[in-house]
């Protein structure tokens, strides 16, 4: 279960600790501040939903943790520690050992993540041999084992297949199996169900949760769909314009959003009670990350904006760990 703030305050026990992460992209038009001061604390085995619109910086946050930001992008500041290891001090070989070994990643589009000209067995075996001194047969046995874990029938046959011979859902299961190969402490899943049928989406989410609980792997599930993480995550972090604007347990976020943006996201999820009526939509568009407005980045789309919103909102942290960046939170300031 989720620890309370006091339990989580023992930062030493945390698996992942990110403070003030800034990832910027130097483009011809100017500096794009894709991630602009993100703090994440993640306990062992915890599932965090990282929710936001396209361009909110949620995927870039995930790639930053793995050191997979390509030029012109760059992590410009912030600290990242994983299991007590300072990630910002890693060299290329250190990063390589971290990737796929300690922290694995699952990508969005399963039709693009597997190499089309290599057989599945080659792609799984290399994932293990990159981190452990094992021979082919041992790596093959492990590959077979994880394929069974993710619910793939006749794994030997699948291992001899090429990606184009498999369905989208099957490919994503294989990507998940590859992520599990080296028993990582953390998996970052970047919208892994967005490209799949709704029915397969549900299965994958269900199995992912089961597997993480079984193995004790922590999970950061990046998505634009609040409904997806509602049934999956322990805590939810809502990102907007490169920052986490609200953070709390899943229940608190869904039942009692404090930030108007979070409320906008919740209201735009279709549900049984909204059947037949127009879906709510947040007015306006995500602001350009090139020149964010002064103060709260959400101000111009916000129905609750007040004069104070012209200034940068402070990150209010409540005693139970609930946090939000808003001058005029819903439900009013708590005593």
């Amino acid at each position, binding site marked *: 279960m989720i620890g309370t703030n006091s339990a989580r305050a023992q930062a030493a026990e945390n698996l992942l600790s990110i403070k003030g992460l800034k990832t910027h992209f130097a483009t011809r038009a100017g500096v794009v501040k894709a991630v602009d001061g993100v703090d994440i604390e993640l306990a062992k085995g915890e599932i965090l939903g990282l929710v936001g619109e396209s361009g909110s910086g949620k995927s870039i946050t995930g790639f930053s943790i*793995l050191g*997979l930001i390509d030029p012109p992008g760059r992590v410009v500041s912030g600290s990242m520690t994983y299991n007590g290891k300072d990630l910002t001090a890693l060299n*290329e070989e250190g990063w*390589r*050992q*971290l*990737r*796929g*070994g300690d922290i*694995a*990643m699952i*990508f969005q*589009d399963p039709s*693009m*993540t*597997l*190499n*089309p*000209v*290599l*057989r599945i067995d080659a792609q799984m075996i*290399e*994932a293990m041999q*990159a*981190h452990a001194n094992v021979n082919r047969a041992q790596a093959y046995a492990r590959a077979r084992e994880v394929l069974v874990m993710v619910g793939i029938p006749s794994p030997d046959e699948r291992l001899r297949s*090429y990606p*184009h*011979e498999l369905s989208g859902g099957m490919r994503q299961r294989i*990507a998940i199996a*590859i992520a599990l190969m080296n028993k990582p402490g953390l998996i970052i899943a970047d919208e892994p169900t967005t490209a799949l049928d709704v029915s397969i989406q549900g299965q994958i989410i269900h199995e992912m949760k089961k597997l993480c609980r079984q193995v004790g792997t922590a999970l950061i599930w990046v998505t634009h769909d609040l409904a997806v993480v509602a049934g999956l995550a322990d805590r939810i972090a809502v990102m907007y314009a490169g920052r986490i604007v609200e953070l709390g347990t899943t229940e608190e976020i869904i039942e009692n959003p404090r930030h108007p943006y979070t409320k906008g996201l919740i209201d735009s999820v279709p549900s049984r009670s909204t059947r037949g009526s127009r879906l709510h939509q947040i007015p306006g568009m995500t602001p350009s990350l090139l020149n964010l407005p002064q103060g709260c980045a959400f101000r111009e789309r916000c129905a609750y904006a007040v004069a104070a919103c012209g200034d940068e909102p402070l990150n209010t942290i409540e005693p139970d760990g609930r946090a939000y960046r808003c001058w005029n939170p819903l439900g009013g300031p708590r005593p």
Partner: protein
Amino acid sequence: MLLFIINRLIQAAGAVVVMSMLVFIGLYLIGDPTAMLVSPEANDLERAAVRQAFGLDQPIWMQYLTFVGNAARGDFGRSFLTGQPAMQLILERMPATIEMVVVAIGFAVLVGVPLGMLAGLRPKAASSKAVMTVSILGFSLPTFWIGLMLIMFFSVYLGLLPSSGRGSTVSVGGLSLSVLTPDGWRHLILPALTLGLAKAALIIRVTRAATREVLPMDYIKFARAKGVRPRRVVGVHLLRNILIPIVTVTGLEFGQAVAFAVVTETVFAWPGMGKLLIDSIIILDRPVVVAYLVLMVFFLIMLNLVVDILYMAIDPTAREKVRD
């Protein structure tokens, strides 16, 4: 798979037939070879006798049918000029051309693919920009000029390498080859380099473009996210995917080089087929020209077959298409 190959061979036969007809008609229209065959002082009676001896008095369809009948038995006629069997004349010269082209293309691939990948992996590095600039020169400068410059430098100025001929050859199963003797190699280097430089330049550009295209793909990033070593990401994940365009271009260039190596052969007095073809065209030596073109059509179709089989080895989706 076998069906696919048989299918291709039938196609090849069809193409050879059509090609031979076109060449036959074309050469018939260009002119009468009798003038080349008799002395200028010959009278009409002598001319008629020569015409009859070579079957040139027959109508064209009759001549063609006679040719096809003989060709089916492997007889492509005798050269009007030397009287030697045409096919034998060509096959004697073929090893020289083929070995020069194989060395040239081998050089082009061995140099072009690594340099192209390097230029694609670090497009902004000064070395990559230098490679790309030189490659523009590589295929812009005419072959004969490159050949002459190489002769000037290596043969005339440095005196290191011979400027003409094949050097000593070794006969292997009836084929005489230069690649097996050190002296043959010394003779082979300059012509192969001349022919290979332009091909290398082209392969560099194709490889670079393919590398730039494949590099941003998700599967490359996923391979990195798995912690796969950079050497394997480039050498397996990237290389296997850029091989398809490289094989295509290399196959095309190989065919081109064999069929039209004449410029290089002329510059280096390399006794290959190209020079024979040009000489035969000039004197309207019909049997040799027809036999040469038939052989080339067959060769190019075989080359395409090899390229297709290579595709199947590289790209699993290509294998699927053949199975269907």
